[in-house]
């Protein structure tokens, strides 16, 4: 029987009585979110302030960077309450996702990153909104409205950019560059970690299921809404 089926775990204190592998699974998720939220703010959101084409968009990007940093702070605080060493909650102590290894060069790239990566993040956070560890479920609920706004920002800005021929070309180039990295964001097929997360109700869906959901939603956005082309990629990581 899974922990989720038995009873949700209501607090950090209650977590101490959970099976060891449940505790390890929760730690892995929190570390990953804390590290990647901070690294994303550093390599995408902060540099994008200089690239934004108007003061309005510069200040909006400034706020988005603060919100992404704020998500890091919330995950880090939960991690610290659980006794995760501080060094493991920052990119200096843990390897971030590979998508962050490609530095931002243009405003169009930033808008596409928000369009693609924040949608991927929403799908991950949606899953955590039913998490059996309630502090993590509550954190997911808190961050979700801002994640939705960031993803909508990506859609809105890309919608504006594709109104010109030059903008279409740049947005398509950014999609061609960043989209192939996205399927890996959801983890490996038949992942042992994911099986553990589902066993305990920490996550609800397989990596493959979330990846397929992402591909459907992103295809609707890119091909249905923006009328651009989504590059072919291997769907299984």
């Amino acid at each position, binding site marked *: 029987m899974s922990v989720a089926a038995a009873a949700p775990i209501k607090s950090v204190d209650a977590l101490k009585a959970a099976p060891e592998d449940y505790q390890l699974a929760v730690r892995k998720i929190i570390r990953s979110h804390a590290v990647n939220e901070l690294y994303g703010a550093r390599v995408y959101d902060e540099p994008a302030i200089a690239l934004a084409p*108007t*003061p*309005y968009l*510069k*200040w*909006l990007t*400034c*706020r988005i960077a603060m919100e992404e*940093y704020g998500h890091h702070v919330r995950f880090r605080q939960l991690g610290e309450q659980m006794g995760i060493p501080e060094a493991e909650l920052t990119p200096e102590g843990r390897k971030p996702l590979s998508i962050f290894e490609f530095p931002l060069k243009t405003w169009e790239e930033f808008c596409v990153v928000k369009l693609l990566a924040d949608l991927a993040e929403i799908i991950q956070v949606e899953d955590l909104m039913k998490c059996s560890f309630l502090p993590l479920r509550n954190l997911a609920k808190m961050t979700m409205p801002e994640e939705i*706004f960031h993803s909508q920002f990506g859609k809105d800005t890309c919608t504006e950019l594709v109104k010109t021929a030059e903008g279409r070309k740049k947005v398509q180039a950014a999609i061609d560059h960043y989209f192939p990295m996205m399927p890996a964001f959801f983890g490996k097929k038949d992942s042992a970690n994911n099986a553990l997360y589902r066993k305990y109700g920490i996550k609800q869906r397989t990596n493959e299921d979330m990846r397929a959901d992402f591909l459907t939603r992103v295809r609707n956005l890119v091909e249905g809404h923006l009328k651009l082309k989504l590059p072919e990629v291997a769907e299984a990581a």
Partner: protein
Amino acid sequence: MSGTPRGEADEAFAQLAAFISEIPMLPWFAAAGATLTPSAIADAESYVAALGLAPCPVAPVAGWRAAADIAQRPDWSRDWWHAESAHEKALHRRGAARFGLAPLLAALTDVTETAAVLRDRAADGLGRAGVDDEALAKVAGGAAAQACHQQALALLAGSDAGRAFGAKYALFAAGHWPLGIVGGTCFVF
């Protein structure tokens, strides 16, 4: 603390702590759209002069929609934005030389975390004006947070180069939103 006497560092960080504690207490955006007082006009003129830019007219902005339109106009002054960025970099270098990079960044992080509440203050201002616009609340909150960051840099650098940000922050502290130089005019909402 690199190269700075203990007492001087204590004084600077105490000043910064007072500044941070003041942030939630100020009337953010409360005077947005109000007539500009002589004091507000003087602050705007000092801001432009301290950035090393040519004098320009200072103009009020009537409402939130007009403020959003001005902030999106294509004829915004790149010289203004670059002058701010250059001042920020100079102050950052000086602050890091005075106290060390890590303490400087830690102090600026405290400022950013405190300034996160300013989106809510902007949303309150929008609500009072009967405007429902989440993006604009975030834009205004981002601008106000940037001003807090810049003023904190000025305080920690302890240099005359921070005067521009002092004048800009005074406008925010009085409830206005300085929108910068657009089309040759310094707009203050």
